[in-house]
């Protein structure tokens, strides 16, 4: 009987090594752009980040100093409005697709979500411009939020659906068998069981739209001063970065880099914070 513990042949060890090497290389190639972008942003942006950058509004051309405080806060407001629209609608339609699969409208909803996912962001911007900005007669934070919210819906809806479909049917039966009404069983048992994945989907959608510029150009529009009013034009980091980056001034270029770095840090912080907050109260299997 051949021994199973005999040393591996040289050929096999080589092939093994070669394959491991390829896998490692692929992993590095995937991570490299992220590392490069982040590293370059830190290199270019850190120098211009100071207290004034975080607390002041932009100065006129030629004047030194000034910052992006209004754009940072503006981005948060627009993203907040967007999330208030996109998260409930996305999760709601995800639940509809996963839990009411018997209905023939499900395929219509799923198809619509997939098409919406493929609509270029500038087109969403134009649509919101026509539907919200024109009737309102002016640009507004609200319309920016609507544009971002619409863009969040398909990602959240499809991940919610996928995650709910992964919850075993036995869990639904357990809840129904206890005499829990269907709606409560769906929200507090099925959705809760899938919450980790659903939150990941919502965060992905959030991070994706946080950097969107095109739909904000003719909705939120941007401005150069403090504004917290949802019915008025509002500054947002991507617009500000865009405006500064294409300007001819070195000072503005440096601020654009700093703004980009702040945007990425904000996204990372928001995603991490949501994860920490929502993981409370939920049990990990072996905790």
């Amino acid at each position, binding site marked *: 009987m051949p021994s199973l513990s005999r040393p591996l042949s040289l050929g096999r060890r080589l092939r093994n090594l070669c394959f491991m090497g390829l896998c490692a290389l692929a992993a590095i190639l995937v991570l490299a752009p992220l590392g490069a972008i982040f590293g370059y942003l830190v290199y270019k942006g850190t120098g211009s980040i100071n207290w004034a950058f975080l607390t002041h509004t932009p100065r006129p051309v030629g004047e030194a100093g000034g910052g992006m405080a209004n754009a940072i806060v503006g981005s948060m407001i627009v993203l907040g409005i967007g999330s208030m629209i996109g998260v409930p609608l996305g999760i709601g339609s995800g639940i509809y697709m996963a839990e009411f699969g018997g209905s023939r409208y499900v395929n219509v909803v799923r198809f619509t979500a997939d098409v919406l996912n493929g609509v270029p962001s500038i087109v969403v911007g134009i649509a919101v411009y026509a539907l919200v900005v024109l009737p309102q007669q002016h640009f507004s934070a609200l319309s920016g939020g609507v544009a971002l919210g619409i863009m969040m819906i398909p990602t959240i809806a499809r991940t919610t659906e996928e995650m709910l479909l992964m919850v075993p049917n*036995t869990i639904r*039966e*357990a*809840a129904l*068998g206890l005499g829990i009404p269907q709606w409560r069983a769906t929200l507090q048992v099925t959705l809760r069981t899938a*919450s980790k994945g659903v939150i990941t989907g919502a965060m992905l959608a959030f991070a994706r739209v946080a950097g969107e510029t095109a739909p904000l150009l003719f909705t939120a529009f941007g401005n150069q001063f403090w504004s917290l009013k949802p019915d008025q034009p509002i500054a947002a980091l991507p617009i500000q970065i865009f405006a500064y980056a294409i300007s001819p001034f070195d000072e503005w270029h440096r601020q654009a880099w700093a703004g980009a770095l702040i945007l990425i840090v904000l996204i990372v912080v928001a995603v991490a914070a949501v994860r920490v907050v929502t993981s409370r109260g939920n049990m990990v299997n072996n*905790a």
Partner: protein
Amino acid sequence: MGVGIEVKDLNAWFGKAQVLKEINIKVGANAVTAVIGPSGCGKSTFIRCLNRMHETNPEARLTGTVQVGDINVYEAGTDAVDVRRRIGMVFQKPNPFPTMSIYDNVSAGLRLNGYHKRRELDVVVEHSLRMAALWDEVKDVLKKKSGASLSGGQQQRLCIARALAVQPDLLLMDEPCSALDPISTGKIEELIFQLKAEYTVVIVTHNMQQAARVADHTGFFLMGKLIEYDKTEKIFTTPSDKRTEDYITGRFG
């Protein structure tokens, strides 16, 4: 206190396939009734008809009447949610809620029906876990450990505790031991025996020794029909139908 069950002319379908044919049966209160029969004979469908879990399958259909205690289960005005609240069910595979602690699992039926009095919940949780013979094993980790972190046998006892916590009149068990080892099975059988002081229990089982050990009455199902229903002793010693005899002696099934 347990309640009796009376089933009349029960027929059930999945799509076009008829899985139960003209079932008539009366089950006494505070007794354990076993339902045996080969795979696909309709045993599980039968008990799922008792608490209206059958209809959770969109293909499902049924005719006939089911009376459980004072509830006419399929009467027009009866709410399926109310029926399930009063008829507990334990499933074949242990299915604790994975994201909830042991405490939250046991109290889920009450909490998710809007019942939140902390101190009373504590009492119910302890009582239910004691009834399910799980209290001593988990009392120190009630809120620290997830229901899914327990062993298979413990999970099934947790599911029994969860079903008992809503204080049902009737407990349905769908092959509760089929995924468990003999020691856990023994614990659950002992438990079933004690439960009949307070509950009526209907248990589906593939294991005929189990039926013989725990049940007062046994019903034998074959191809959607109730072939024979009698005292367990009679079924296993002197069955009146040839098919019952063939099945329990292992000639088929």
